[in-house]
């Protein structure tokens, strides 16, 4: 059995032990500790309470009389009107309530903002793309058309009148070019470019004759087309237009390299 320590007994004697019941049970079961505890209680009881000499009610007055002379009076604190306003418990309470309301409002507003952001994520600021000029597209399409037209005209110019092998492909190409030329004509009308319009008109007549030659392309019709081409100077006009378009395209887009 573990005996009580001196400290535990002293605590018990002064009623400060945490588990009095447990100590009492041990004292009841352990004669050795019970004897030691009884001895301690006896010793403490022997130490009399020191009785202080009696001091009657006048003692307090004597003490006051002895010290009053050396006590400076406190200076009353004069609060300003503003200071009194803030010192008031009502004002403090209202200030606290206002501060709390402000904090709640801020939290609510912040919450709403956060929610809105989640629902509608902000559109990322995108640098506006430099608007691609539409003209280059038209130019490229036109250039392509003129390139095909030039090759057709060169082929027509040097066509072997004795051979009929190329007659059918040339007619097909003329029909294809004729359709493309009509589109380019419409664009040219809107662009108000008389030089281009004139060249395309000449090309249109020539292509139409080639595509719709009665009985197909034959030496007579080809010869007739060659004369017509030379008369109008269509090939020359096409080449001038191509060189102009190429020059303009290089000037507008020095970083040329892409294709459409």
């Amino acid at each position, binding site marked *: 059995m573990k005996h009580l320590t001196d400290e535990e007994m002293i605590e018990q004697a002064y009623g400060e032990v945490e588990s009095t019941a447990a100590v009492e049970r041990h004292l009841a079961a352990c004669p050795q500790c019970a004897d030691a505890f009884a001895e301690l209680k006896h010793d403490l009881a*022997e130490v009399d309470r020191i009785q202080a000499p009696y001091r009657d009610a006048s003692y*307090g*007055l004597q*003490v006051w009389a002895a010290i009053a002379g*050396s006590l400076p009076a*406190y200076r009353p604190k004069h609060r300003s009107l503003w200071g009194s306003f803030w010192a008031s418990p009502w004002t403090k309470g209202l200030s606290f309530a206002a501060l709390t309301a402000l904090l709640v409002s801020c939290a609510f507003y912040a919450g709403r903002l956060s929610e809105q952001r989640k629902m509608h994520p902000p559109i990322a600021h995108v640098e506006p793309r430099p608007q691609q000029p539409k003209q280059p597209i038209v130019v490229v399409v036109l250039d392509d058309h003129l390139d095909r037209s030039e090759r057709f005209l060169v082929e027509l110019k040097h066509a072997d009148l004795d051979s009929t092998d190329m007659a059918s492909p040339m007619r097909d190409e003329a029909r294809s070019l004729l359709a493309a030329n009509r589109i380019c004509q419409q664009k040219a009308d809107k662009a108000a470019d008389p030089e281009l319009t004139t060249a395309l008109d000449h090309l249109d007549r020539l292509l139409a004759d080639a595509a719709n030659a009665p009985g197909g392309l034959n030496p007579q019709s080809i010869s007739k087309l060659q004369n017509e081409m030379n008369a109008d100077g269509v090939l020359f006009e096409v080449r001038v237009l191509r060189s102009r378009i190429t020059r303009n395209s290089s000037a507008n887009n020095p970083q040329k390299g892409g294709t459409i």
Partner: protein
Amino acid sequence: MVSNFRMDKNDHAAIQAVLAGDKEAYGTLVVRHSQTLFRVAFRITGNEADAEDAVQEAFLRGYRKLEGFESRSNFGTWIYRIAVHCALDKVRRRHIAETLRVSDCNDPEQDQVQVADDDAGPERLLLSGEISALQTAALQSLTATERTAFVLRHMEDRSTAEIGAALGIDPNAAKQAVFRAVQKMRRRLAPLRVAT
């Protein structure tokens, strides 16, 4: 309890009056608490003169610190602690003075540290019927802190927490001080037990 509450309210009213410039209001506090302070101061110092000095000093200190007194506290408890400190200071100063006095009387040829001899022969004390003198001697053998802790625990019925607060030490340290005091007192009073 009701009277304590009323007294507490009266104490606070008096404090407010003092801080507002009415010095005389402090007189009511002095009259109200002087006897309690004298009792504990006497038990700690062991003599009337020191106890009276400690009481006056406690009220002077209390007056100077009154602005820092928290209105939620109990003035009686607050000034009681100050009085304990003042009495403790008295005991410490007296102990130092007595030690120096013994040292002054030191034999130059005897190079030993001497302290005041509070031990009186138990037989002589018993024979002269001065049992209380033996107890007083036992109390005086304690250090100032042990003595104060023992007085507050054994005679003033203060809890360990209150003793710690009054002495400005940890409650556990206060408990240890009480233990040491009790053990020393029992050793000192052992001859008395055998004789009886």
